[in-house]
């Protein structure tokens, strides 16, 4: 692919200036991205309630987090919703990707556009349109409605990830399996599915993180009893600052760091080329 890095030829002094400028700018932007959240993490250990003044290191806000039953309840709700969303999205997305890749039928392009729609559409539209549907169908808001909303925007991400992997797959693999007597389903299960594993994991992780963090669609589809953690945090933050939220944010950040590290590890796996059939 790109054999040469895209380098503009400037006179020597200009090139150095540009280089220094780009480096400095990148550093500044990274500072802009990190300083606000790091400030939050540092202050989550401040024993003062909300002041800017540092009054000593303390873990009291984390301890207080353990006493907040409604927050814990909503964290549990978020976990239930995210796990259910991930499982349904992985099944729906993987099967969909394979079938759309494998078969040609009328309306296939339309289906692909419909799959892409929830990924790019403003989330508020998905939220209000589902709310109208549930109200008309007489379905009370609860876990089911939240999970339906989450799956609708999550499974396309799994589908796209798996589809990309399928496109890099040698069609001879499946043919060989069929020639050796495998049924279409057997070939899918024993040959295709193992080759897709990194993409399925990556897509599933994405579905989980998207669901865990989602606010807008949940805002319209949850009831008080099925409120997720982001919904609760949004409600608390609207009232104003709260040192317990600082501690919670720091924990969120920790979870994200673990998740990103894990997905970087998976990406290393995904970069292994899919198996090809020796000719």
């Amino acid at each position, binding site marked *: 692919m790109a054999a040469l890095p*895209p380098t503009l030829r400037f006179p020597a002094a200009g090139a150095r200036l540009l280089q220094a400028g780009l480096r400095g700018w990148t550093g500044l932007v990274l500072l802009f991205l990190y300083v606000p959240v790091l400030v939050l993490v540092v202050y989550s250990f401040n024993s003062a309630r909300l002041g800017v003044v540092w009054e000593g290191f303390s873990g009291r806000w984390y301890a207080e987090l353990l006493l907040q039953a409604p927050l814990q309840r909503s964290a549990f709700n978020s976990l239930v919703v995210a796990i259910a969303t991930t499982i349904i999205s992985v099944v729906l997305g993987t099967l969909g990707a394979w079938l759309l890749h494998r078969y040609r039928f009328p309306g296939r392009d339309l289906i692909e556009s419909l799959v892409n729609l929830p990924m790019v559409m403003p989330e508020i*539209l998905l939220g209000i349109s589902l709310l109208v549907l549930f109200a008309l169908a007489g379905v009370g808001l609860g876990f089911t409605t939240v999970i339906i909303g989450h799956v609708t925007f999550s499974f396309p991400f799994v589908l796209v990830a798996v589809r990309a992997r399928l496109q890099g797959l040698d069609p001879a693999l499946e043919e060989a399996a069929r020639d050796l007597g495998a049924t279409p389903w057997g070939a899918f299960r024993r040959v295709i599915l193992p080759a897709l594993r990194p993409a399925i994991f990556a897509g599933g992780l994405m579905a989980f993180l998207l669901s865990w963090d989602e606010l807008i669609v949940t805002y319209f589809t949850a009831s008080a009893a099925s409120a997720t953690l982001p919904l609760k945090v*949004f409600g608390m933050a609207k009232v104003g600052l709260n040192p317990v939220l600082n501690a919670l944010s720091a924990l969120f950040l920790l979870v994200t760091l673990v998740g990103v590290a894990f997905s970087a590890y998976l990406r290393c796996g995904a970069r292994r080329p899919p198996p090809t059939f020796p000719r």
Partner: protein
Amino acid sequence: MTPAPVARDPGTRPGALAWLLLAPLLAWLALFVVAPALLLLGCSLGERDEFGQVLWGFSLENYARVLDPIYLRIFLRSLGFAALTTGLCLLIGYPVAYQIARAAPRVRELLLLLVMVPFWTSFLVRTYAWMAILREEGLLNALVTWLQPAWAPLGLLYTPAAVVTGLVYSYLPFLILPVYASVEKLDGALIEAAHDLGAGPWRVFPAVILPLTLPGIAAGVTLVFVPAVAMFAVTDLLGGARVPLIGNVIQNQFLQARDWPFGAALGVALLGLFLVSQLVLRALRPRGALRG
């Protein structure tokens, strides 16, 4: 979508079993994407009774209200905020994406990871962080008090500037990542060739690099602009509902004012804007671009 360049097209017509496996996907799309959209359209043509119930019917009254100057101004303000956010993200993010793509492989992995972490961090946490910085007793005002006591305290939170800062902060990684992907695919040989043909750096950038990274720019702009137009959480937290944007109004019609038909009409107008913007972007996308 480009068809896979496979000599032996593996595509066949689905048999009964394949249709059976396809059924859940089709049902999901029909029930939870197509039906809700149609119902939203239907709802927008109805009316509400005095208890906030939807009376189905066929009237364009709600759309007439959408065109009321009050709401048109809110629509325009939302588009303006989103455009400003997108422009700032592009100005701030493009050089960063370019620099990451040019870095040595090791550094590149590290820089990418550094952009990925905020990308995956809850936007609520990131917005909340700005609340803590911008509020009257916050860090920025403490700094101002220390440097220039006469100015303090600055009213920073609950201003349009706070909203735009929050939006840029939330969406910047969404622009950097796709632009990076297209700069990374850029073939340096094309730039060398342009230089060898006598073009200087100020000519090569707009004539070669910019057009070749347009797909990444288009993807990044969509990923920032579309959610920014309809965002109501960031604007609620940092704008304090003093600068209502279209997302806040729709949310309010559905959950507080309980005028669903009017909220639905605003939603359909937003959907229309979204679809038009997608079509425009698709038309702008260069076809059969240069390949290295």
